[in-house]
């Protein structure tokens, strides 16, 4: 006996974003500008991602022809970075984003 007939999928089709990935850089030859986006509450109570980006900056400068660095701190870590922050990274060859854990 069929007690359960046609069922409706409760999950819904995934809505595909029309955003595309930024173009890949084919090389890492300088001069380069590197960006860092810090995304944590408070460096003094956590592992300190800002300090981590400083170490990374030294490495980048050592290995690549990095001539400039843009470092930003997201004001609200749970929200995407605002347009003003994204605009400040426009000249960057790459942006490192994250939080230390």
């Amino acid at each position, binding site marked *: 006996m069929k007690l359960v007939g*046609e069922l409706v*999928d*409760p999950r819904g089709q995934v809505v595909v974003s029309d955003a595309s990935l930024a173009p890949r850089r084919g090389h890492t030859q300088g001069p380069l500008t590197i960006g860092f986006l810090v995304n944590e509450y*408070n460096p003094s109570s956590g592992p300190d991602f800002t300090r981590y980006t400083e170490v990374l900056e030294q490495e980048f400068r050592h290995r690549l022809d990095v001539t400039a660095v843009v470092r930003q701190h997201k004001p*609200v870590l*749970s*929200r995407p970075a605002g347009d003003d922050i994204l605009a400040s990274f426009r000249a960057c060859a790459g942006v490192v984003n994250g939080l230390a854990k």
Partner: protein
Amino acid sequence: MGAFTEAGSLEEWVELAHTEGLTDGLPVYPPTRGAVDALVEASGRDPGQLLGAIPPRGGAATVEVVGANAAMAGCKPEHFEMVLTAVEAMLEDRFNLRGVVTTTHPCWPLVIVSGSVVERLDMAHTESVFSGGGAHANAAIGRAIKLLLWNAGGATPGEPVKEVFGHPGRYAFCVAESPASPWPPLHQARDVDADSGITVFACESPTSVAMWGADDTPVNRLAQLADAMAIKGCNNTHTMGETLVVLTPNEARHLAENGYDRAAVQQQLWQQARRRIGDLLSPGVPPYAWWPDWVDAGNPDELVPVTERPEDIHVMVTGAESIPWMAVCAGWGNLGGYAVSRALPDES
């Protein structure tokens, strides 16, 4: 839905729901075509109408998909418009639904129903109101929201949900405001000009505030509540944002009889619910960047309020009439989950 149509019995459906991950562990009704169509028809909306993509998975919340989850929750047709309105409210940017459902913090969307619809749908608003109060509507509406976020949103523990402890309201979190409130319904206080409305707010479970030691003086009674609003481990205490306080109808009437309207309660609590910066930050910890400029962040004796503005303290009235009581449902802080209110159609 492919294989699910092969379920030959209710027992088989229950098993499939678990094995296919369509539920969080509790049994659910099968989303049959007939049950879903009845909900959609009652809403008067097009089944394909897209309310938005439910983060983080991005499942399309069409009216039909929301209906499928509402059917699984056991919603009746008269409950469905409230579910749809709550979903639309949660999808507003200021609510930051993606963050709310995936954060490490124990907050979850609380659906607050206010206005005449509360009595019309026989919603619970007295004893045990935060656990559904034994009413069909409270439980089914809250459960429908949960299932939609689970199924369309993919909000499952571990990946992607990082909530450290969890929140009992994740099973169902819907309350109704008491018609016995001495003040206008919550949605009207938030500038929604309608007889009935919905407010969604991401918050923690209620923390009890009993009136031990307090006399009848409103300032002293509200001080009891303010103390609970500004505990040291609370996100609001450190980051502001928004918070919700709950008063029983008899407590609210006592305040009203002493000249307090809702705005006066908000103002009084905003003045009282504060902590000294020197007590909040250990020596050497810098002040927070999100505090507004008028906070004298370099002064350890500065008293910081739990919200930036009095109106960010949401005041609702519900619960039993037996004993005057209060509660706090702390928010997520300045990270999101801010209250959004929407009107319900007159006939809902």
